[in-house]
Structures are given as structure tokens and as C-alpha cells.
């Protein structure tokens, strides 16, 4: 086993998801995500284009940050248990920024035989500004 299986009974409302930080995102990281995702919006790699639009530098795709943040949720709840993942984009992430991912469980419930947990997650830059405000819902196994 590469991970600990988390059961519904192991989780309490208010529990924190183990946080982590990805340091120093680079333009190269944006380009890798562009290639991996197919998102070739020039705002994220074309310096000439962004300057013409009045923006100082290229910035990270929101979905790159959302992808980084999704690890927090998948590692905690189990990829196969995830039922919903939602993100709202706030502050942009620029080259050289770090992204810290953290979150907590806000609710436990049982509905239609599923043992559900819900939580809030955030991706923050190195100044503590919120880049992404997110939420998730997952159906965990139960010890019955």
C-alpha cells in the first residue's frame, strides 16, 4: 500500500488536511501545464501578448493552481472517493510565486447509503493571499 486508507469513522469535522507547499512556480511550469492540458491561452506564456494587454508578465493558469490544490483533496479523501471538486479563482499566481495548499473538513453526513465528507480548501501565495478558494465532497468507506 502506498497510502493510508481513510474511513468515514476516522474523520472529524474540523480536521485539517495535511498542508504542503509547491515552491517557485516558473514560466516553464506554465508551459508544461499548457502542453499537458491543451490550454494555450497566450496570457500564460506569451510575454508580448500580455504586455500589449497591459499585464506585466505571464501568469499561471488557474487550472494549474487548481491541479496543484487537487492533490490535497485526492490524497486525503482518496481519488476514487471524490464526488465533487470546485474552485473559485481569486489572486493570480506569478512567476516565482509559491503555492501553499491547506484545508479542513467542514461537514460529515450520511445520505443514500453514502458516508460523505465535505471540506473547504485554499491555495495561498507566499504573502498569504488566496489564489484559490475551493471545496470538495467525497464518499468514504465505512467500517459499518
Amino acid at each position, binding site marked *: 500500500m502506498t497510502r493510508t486508507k481513510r474511513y468515514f469513522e476516522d474523520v472529524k469535522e474540523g480536521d485539517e488536511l495535511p498542508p504542503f507547499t509547491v515552491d517557485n512556480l516558473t514560466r516553464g511550469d506554465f508551459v508544461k501545464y499548457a502542453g499537458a492540458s491543451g490550454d494555450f491561452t497566450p496570457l500564460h506564456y506569451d510575454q508580448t501578448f500580455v504586455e500589449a494587454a497591459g499585464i506585466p508578465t505571464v501568469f499561471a493558469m488557474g487550472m494549474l493552481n487548481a491541479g496543484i490544490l487537487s492533490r490535497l483533496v485526492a490524497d486525503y479523501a482518496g481519488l476514487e472517493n471524490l464526488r465533487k471538486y470546485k474552485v473559485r479563482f481569486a*489572486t493570480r499566481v506569478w512567476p516565482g510565486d509559491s503555492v501553499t495548499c491547506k484545508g479542513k473538513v467542514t461537514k460529515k453526513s450520511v445520505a443514500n447509503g453514502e458516508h460523505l465528507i465535505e471540506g473547504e480548501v485554499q491555495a495561498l501565495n507566499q504573502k498569504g493571499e488566496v489564489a484559490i478558494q475551493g471545496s470538495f465532497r467525497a464518499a468514504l468507506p465505512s467500517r459499518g
Partner: protein
Amino acid sequence: MADTSDIGRVGKPVVMKIEAGKIREFAKSIKDPNPLYRDEAVAKAEIGGIMPPPTFLMTLAHWDDGDGQPRVPLDTRRILHGEQEFEYFKPIYVGDTLTAVTKVANIFEKTGGRGGTMKFVVMDTDFTNQKGEKVAVAHFTVIETGQAVASS
């Protein structure tokens, strides 16, 4: 008032194959070292096979030749991705073939701060697998700001 005449427009179905190499590349690009995305034996033992990361359905862009997204006229210099939501109903595995159908779910306006009037467009994409099971829905919200997306 926003022009809402595009609400309900539906794009052409896009067929998307779920491939191991693409999942591996995507997981690397989001800096997720989880072996479940890389090691077939580990993934098979733990979750029945390699599954894509939660936001992988964004790679639909690679399979869409331009007809999958119903057209709503927007100025690419002024657009921001506002929100993204995924709902997952059934597991998706490497080897699956998904069909994605996108429709314009909503268009509305809000008065923002520095950006003036903002136009919101919400697109919903239904993903159905080769067995006809609806596996996921993606809700994509794009915002067109009143002026160029200023630095913050």
C-alpha cells in the same frame, strides 16, 4: 443587459480517449508524485486501474477540433477563468472512451470593481463513457471583464 441568446446552444460531441501517457504528463505538470497516476500495478491493486487526476477532464481541449465548445463571442484579452467545478459519478480509467457534450448553461452580467461590468458565461460539459454511463460533469465559468485584466 447581457445578450443571453446563446444560452442553450450545444457544441458537437467530442470523443476523448483516456490515455496513460497523457495522465502521467498531466500529473507531472501539476507536480503530483502519486504512483497511482504512474504505476499500473499499484493503481490496479488499490483503485482498480490508473485513474486521471481530479482536474484531468480539462484535457478535453486536446480532442476538441473547434466544434465542441458552443461559440459565445468573447474578447480573449479580457477573459478570466472565474470558477471550475467537477462532479464525479463513476470512476474513469485508462482505456475508457468518453464522449463530451458542452452546452451554454448561463450568461449573465455583474457590476465589478475596477473592471466595470463583467459578463459571466457558464458552460456545462457532460462526460459519458463507452458503456453509456454518465461519469462526470464539468461546470466552467468564464468572465469577460470591462477592460483588460489589470495587474494586481
